[in-house]
């Protein structure tokens, strides 16, 4: 069976505005990403700010134009799909944005917010009161919330309203951009439990964009690690966590301080900051910060290779494991 969503060699290119002395060029915010999302499964995309994860998500949702490559949804090409055609698909592919309060209009009641998708899709003949009640119950909010305004609810509740609105039309694919950013841990747990429950109930496929590895670990089936617009490692979540192949994945895992003052961390410290996407390093893009850098890394671009079910782009995978073995 083919996947629900097939992303193949997608590039999202932005034009730069030229200054007085510089000529305009282009940058590849997403630079050749391929991945599959299966029906009813969760795929996590992890990376730092500026790694292109949100751009990729927006390309899938039709909010950015993919300059190259193909995005197939149930076999249908989404790249260059006319907006009128895409609008029909927005019943099936929905996006939940990062800022939960900011994405809710302050002048509309919760009821009009969560039933707006019906109006946009020309389904206003439905009983909107009943739909609002159904959706609020589904995300665990009391039906009385329908009459409230966004400023009358908390951040965690606003996220739930965001989920209700995204799921109003019974979509097949939910794209969730940082669904837990800025939430306290206990509310973060509630949010993730809610997504997991709805996925089981509705058979949703979910694409989660996050920089929080703790979130990815529990809720996703597969995970892809992005760096400077490219995937550097991809595989089943548990395997990637147990045996990361790429040093960047290892660094991300290690940079996740544990709530235990005596935790012995295998800390891989990165030097410096992520390079600018305007000046992409030659060879392996990660070599400027990689603690295990070798001469070859600055000249040759690593190709994909696989280790079990995990694929990665590193010339010297698991060099950290070898170093560990050498020191012990």
């Amino acid at each position: 069976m083919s996947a629900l969503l097939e992303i193949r060699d997608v590039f999202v290119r932005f034009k730069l505005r030229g200054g007085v002395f510089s000529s305009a060029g282009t940058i590849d915010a997403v630079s050749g990403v391929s991945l599959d999302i299966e029906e009813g499964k969760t795929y996590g995309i992890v990376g730092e700010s500026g790694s292109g994860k949100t751009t990729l998500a927006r390309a899938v949702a039709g909010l950015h134009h993919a300059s190259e490559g193909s995005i197939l949804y149930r076999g249908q090409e989404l790249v260059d799909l006319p907006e009128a055609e895409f609008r029909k698909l927005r019943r099936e592919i929905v996006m939940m944005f990062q800022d939960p309060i900011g994405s809710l209009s302050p002048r509309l009641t919760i009821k009009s917010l969560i039933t707006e998708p019906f109006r946009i899709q020309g389904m206003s003949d439905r009983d909107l009161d009943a739909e609002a009640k159904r959706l609020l119950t589904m995300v665990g909010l009391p039906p009385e919330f329908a009459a409230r305004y966004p400023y009358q609810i908390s951040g965690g509740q606003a996220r739930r309203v965001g989920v209700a609105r995204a799921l109003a039309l019974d979509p097949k694919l939910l794209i969730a951009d940082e669904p837990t950013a800025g939430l306290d841990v206990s509310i973060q747990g509630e949010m993730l439990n809610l997504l997991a429950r709805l996925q089981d109930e509705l058979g949703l496929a979910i694409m989660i964009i996050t920089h929080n590895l703790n979130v990815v670990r529990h809720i996703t089936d597969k995970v892809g690690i992005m760096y400077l617009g490219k995937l550097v490692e991809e595989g089943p979540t548990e395997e990637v966590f147990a045996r990361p192949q790429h040093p960047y994945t290892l660094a991300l895992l290690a940079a996740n301080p544990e709530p235990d003052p005596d935790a012995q961390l295998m800390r891989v410290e990165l030097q410096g900051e992520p390079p600018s996407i305007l000046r992409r390093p030659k060879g392996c893009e990660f070599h400027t910060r990689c603690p295990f850098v070798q001469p070859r890394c600055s000249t040759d671009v690593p190709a994909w290779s696989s280790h079990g079910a995990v694929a990665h782009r590193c010339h010297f995978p698991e060099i950290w494991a070898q170093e560990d073995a050498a020191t012990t």
Partner: protein
Amino acid sequence: MAVLDIRDLSVSYATPRGPLKALRNVSMTIPEKKITGIVGESGCGKSTLISSIIRLMAPNAKVGSGEVRFKGENLLARSENEMRALRGTEISMVFQDPMQTHNPVLTVGRQMIDIQYRDKLSKAEKRKRAAGMLALVGIPDPEARLNQYPFEFSGGMRQRIAIAMALMAKPSLLIADEPTTALDATLEVQIIKRLRELQDEIGCSILFISHHLGVIAELCDEVVVMYAGEVVESGTVRDVFHNPAHPYTRALLECDPGHIKVRTRNLPTIPGNIPDLVNLPSGCIFAERCDKRHDACAARPAMGTASPGHHAACHLIAERVTA
């Protein structure tokens, strides 16, 4: 010796519904030359606490009772001019958002020289000192970078510049309000490590506010747990994280997905919401959400001692001692 000693501090905000009691009888001591973490969820009063310490409070805030003693002297009794002399020299602060901390139309060097206005040094000397501070926080090529504007630096670097500026006058107390939340994980680790080294070098105390338990565990010596405007537990990081004495602390630790190594689709949560701070419940502030709630919780618990230097406001402690 404590650099900061907060005693019985209560602060409320005037709202149309009546006074919102944001802090109630908060007491804590920030020891010298140590890093103390304050942890708590949104609405626990962290920000109100900081603004009371540096006396930059919202116009509708009112101090009901208490003292903020800095090196033995009550800051709440100081005049505005005296406070101004203190800020940036004895007590300085690093804010949450590194993107909005700096003036966008002045070079970093100009801003770093400007804040030394109290010192009688030549401009060249001040500039040299600024470059030295940038080097100290790990910014390569500091001399040249002084001529750049904030937008030419990345988020991690801007936060480091903010730290450099805050430490310029070698303060006795640095208050850091969630300085790493706007940063990515790998940069967060770099900043934390640098803060630790700087604290060692300068010998100041740091009050570090965060809701990220992992960061607190990694960086701090002592920790104060706040809930809905009250201190519920305090002690060394080891005591509090290994043997939490208050059910709220325990619940908070259990909720942290960093703690849970086995994959689960059902993460622990703390059911319920924080109480309304205008209409407070009469007994224990956490009782409504507590799984250990019993009859005694109808009365507000006093701060009890779980072990030397480890305190919590829970009836269970007193009951355990008498049982």
